[in-house]
């Protein structure tokens, strides 16, 4: 059974003072975070409480729930203040020196001291690393949310005119996004009863065989639903590359610019554009 809870109970005040001194010494230019003393005290209280159970190795167990919760809050608030993960973990690690000193003073013999120090060190290591894990997870959450948002943002189907839709594609067309793009286009065709859809690839930097295949599939699916597609925004470099790749676009209508495609779509739908003389000319 570890003596750690007893050591913490008897020497709490001394450990706290030493720890705070340690933190103040290593504080950078930004100075000390607010409520430092409270945080340290809460940490020591939790440490004493959780270690009373005798489990000093697995901080995933329920007796460490409150401690983990404390570290999660700490990690989040520190990250918001601009601290790096190692700075936050350093907060936990800086307890080592004062705690080990207290263990040394309380130990009866050298074996006990070595054993207790080793246990305490491993425990503080895992608690420190836990703050890093929380930090990392917070970042992953943000990345995932941004990915989801980008997926939504980048696939708008726009109604240009009665019966004419436009789908401006931007960025990388990986398989997951193409699926979303295709679905939203087909849905919009049903919804609006459009006869012509313009797929604009001005914003797609690379058209390789996979992208070409996705485009051809989308065109074929739209055709099955009764809508013709025009692919626009084919820049010179893309045109040359497609030719070298040997991709045949078959009978798909293509145009260099969205304006050309729109004008063709209007014509096909029976509209004609007339330019009137300006009145003051």
């Amino acid at each position, binding site marked *: 059974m570890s003596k750690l809870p007893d050591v913490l109970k008897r020497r709490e005040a001394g450990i706290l003072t030493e720890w705070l001194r340690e933190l103040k010494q290593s504080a950078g230019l930004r100075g000390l975070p607010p409520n430092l003393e409270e945080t340290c005290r809460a940490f020591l209280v939790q440490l004493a409480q959780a270690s009373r159970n005798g489990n000093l190795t697995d901080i995933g167990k329920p007796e460490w729930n409150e401690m983990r919760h404390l570290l999660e809050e700490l990690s989040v608030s520190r990250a918001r203040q601009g601290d790096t993960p190692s700075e936050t973990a350093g907060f936990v690690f800086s307890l080592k020196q004062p705690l080990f000193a207290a263990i040394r003073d309380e130990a009866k013999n050298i074996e006990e001291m070595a054993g207790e120090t080793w246990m305490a060190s491993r425990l503080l290591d895992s608690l420190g690393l836990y703050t890093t894990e929380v930090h990392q997870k917070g970042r992953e959450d943000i990345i995932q949310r941004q990915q989801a948002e980008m997926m939504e943002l980048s696939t708008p189907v726009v109604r240009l005119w009665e019966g004419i839709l436009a789908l401006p594609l931007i960025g990388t067309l990986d398989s997951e996004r193409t699926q979303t793009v295709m679905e939203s286009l087909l849905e919009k065709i049903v919804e609006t009863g459009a006869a012509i859809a313009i797929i604009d690839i001005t914003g797609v930097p*690379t058209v*390789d*065989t*996979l992208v070409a*295949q996705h485009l051809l599939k989308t065109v074929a699916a739209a055709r099955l639903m009764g809508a013709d597609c025009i692919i626009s925004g084919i820049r010179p*470099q893309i045109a*040359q590359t497609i030719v*070298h790749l*040997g991709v045949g676009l078959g009978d798909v209508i293509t145009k260099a610019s969205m304006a050309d495609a729109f004008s063709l779509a209007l014509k096909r739908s029976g509209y004609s554009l007339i330019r009137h003389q300006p009145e003051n000319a």
Partner: protein
Amino acid sequence: MDIERSEVIRVTSSEDVVRIRQLVREWAIRSGFNLVEQTKIVTGASEIARNTVNHGGGGTLLVEAVNNGSRRGIRLTFEDKGPGIADLELAMKDGYSTGGGLGLGLGGAKRLSNEFEISSRPGEGTRVRMTRWK
């Protein structure tokens, strides 16, 4: 032939394919290729990178900026330790695909580069090396 600089990157996921396209484009720009040339190099890299991920089970890409005395170029070497290709001639043929694609990737990449070498042994892996000169 001189190698001005080189870099090795891993090719294991479709995110890596996106990253490789961006990286290869940067290298092509630094070597002074124009927009059409850049697009050809990047598109060829995209084809082979995707093959490395989908058929080769992942591998590596060696990007090199090379110089043969009179011209500068970009050389890309993709290597994987996958199942390999049993019949290279058939694999290079346009329209032949085992993965449900258009079957134009290998032939297309060859047409997009000035020099193209492919070697493969069943069970040991595949190596594709393509070079584009300015």
